[in-house]
């Protein structure tokens, strides 16, 4: 794989096909664990680790797993890594384990992980699959953290657990209604910004094409002559 391909994988995972905002996958965990920025980061990193491990293993086993039973095999791989991550969190980060609650085992049915295994890792080399896992994990983590910051800041007047000097709290943002509202507005904003990026990228490509074209008749003749001489 070339360097450009990896760039594309990262651009796709973090921006163009951002799992949270562009594809709207893994919504349950996103809504439930963005009450604070730390919860968002914790969930995002847990999913990133599981995504990386499962992508690598699926990619390694892609020629061994028969096509008919691939979905149960992928689920088994994911469930194993979720169990491992759950045990590690229980032993070393009990606070995070408690705040994640039922959503930690539910990472098994997080559509992002199964989706990447099915659509990317089972068809690509190990390095590419690892890069794809990290890219999608970063996209997920960044999205969750931003939403966590917004909800914590407006609803609890604190930033990463550090209380702000003013006492202006809007309880709506820490409630479940606020979760849906912030998520909806974030998707809309991201779609709006992304459509602008897409337009400017298209403009840039058109400009580059225009510049590569010969500007005048003489230039056209010169290039034709140069080609003939070759």
């Amino acid at each position, binding site marked *: 794989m070339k360097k450009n391909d990896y760039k594309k994988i990262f651009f796709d995972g973090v921006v163009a096909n951002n799992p949270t905002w562009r594809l709207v996958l893994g919504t349950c965990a996103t809504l439930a664990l963005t009450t604070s920025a730390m919860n968002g980061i914790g969930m995002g990193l847990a999913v990133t680790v599981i995504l990386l491990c499962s992508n690598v293993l699926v990619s390694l086993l892609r020629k061994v797993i028969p096509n008919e039973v691939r979905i149960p095999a992928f689920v088994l791989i994911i*469930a194993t890594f979720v169990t491992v991550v759950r045990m590690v969190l229980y032993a070393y980060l009990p606070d995070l384990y408690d705040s994640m609650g039922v959503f930690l085992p539910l990472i098994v049915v997080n559509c992002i992980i199964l989706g990447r295994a099915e659509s990317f890792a089972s068809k690509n080399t190990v390095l590419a699959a690892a890069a794809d896992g990290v890219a999608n994990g970063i996209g997920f983590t960044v999205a969750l953290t931003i939403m966590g910051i917004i909800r914590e800041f407006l609803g609890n007047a604190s930033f990463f657990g550090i209380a702000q000097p003013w006492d202006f709290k809007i309880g709506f943002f820490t*409630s479940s209604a606020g979760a*849906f509202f912030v998520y*909806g*507005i974030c998707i*809309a904003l991201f779609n709006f910004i992304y459509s602008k990026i897409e337009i400017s990228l298209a403009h840039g490509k058109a400009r580059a094409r225009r510049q590569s074209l010969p500007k005048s008749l003489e230039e056209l003749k010169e290039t034709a002559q140069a080609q003939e001489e070759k």
Partner: protein
Amino acid sequence: MEIFTLFILAVFVNNFVVVQFLGICPFLGVSKDTSSAFGMGVAVTVVMVLATLVTYPLYTFVMVPLGFEFMEIIFFIFVIAALVQMLEQILKKFIPALYNSLGIYLPLITTNCAVLGVAELVIGDVSALGIASMNLGYALLYALFSGIGFLIAILLMSGLREKVDRYADMPKALKGFPISMVIASFMAMAFYVFTLI
């Protein structure tokens, strides 16, 4: 009386979708029209009850005595996947009419958080459910009531979306998922009233 409390808690106060955020994918994905939303809701309810019927005894009578608690995620997801597959085959063979109306939703249910969620919730901390201790009967009732809560939420959502998607004039960026999220936000506000009971 305990059953009534469990019903109110599971259906309204701790509604599976808008309060506990379980089963959001079908809630957003299959709520474009009321008839398919009803089919999805019923299918999820049936699978939730059946899954609890298998996973709860499996956990309490087999896995705990043998010390296999740490394997619960792997066991549960496989039980649910096998159950859904079996249900699909049985319906196809014996009740084709029902299969034609519900069958297309069944494969989607395997990767639905609501089913695995209820299997995990009934073996976890039950103090929030308003009952003293968990047993198989309560577990099944809780799964049934949670399914009814899911059905109510997805039906309300589909009714609202039928109107909003067709008639509302909104910016292009808000169309689709974002406006559904905002609708869900208003529904969550309405359900918040029940927590004040």
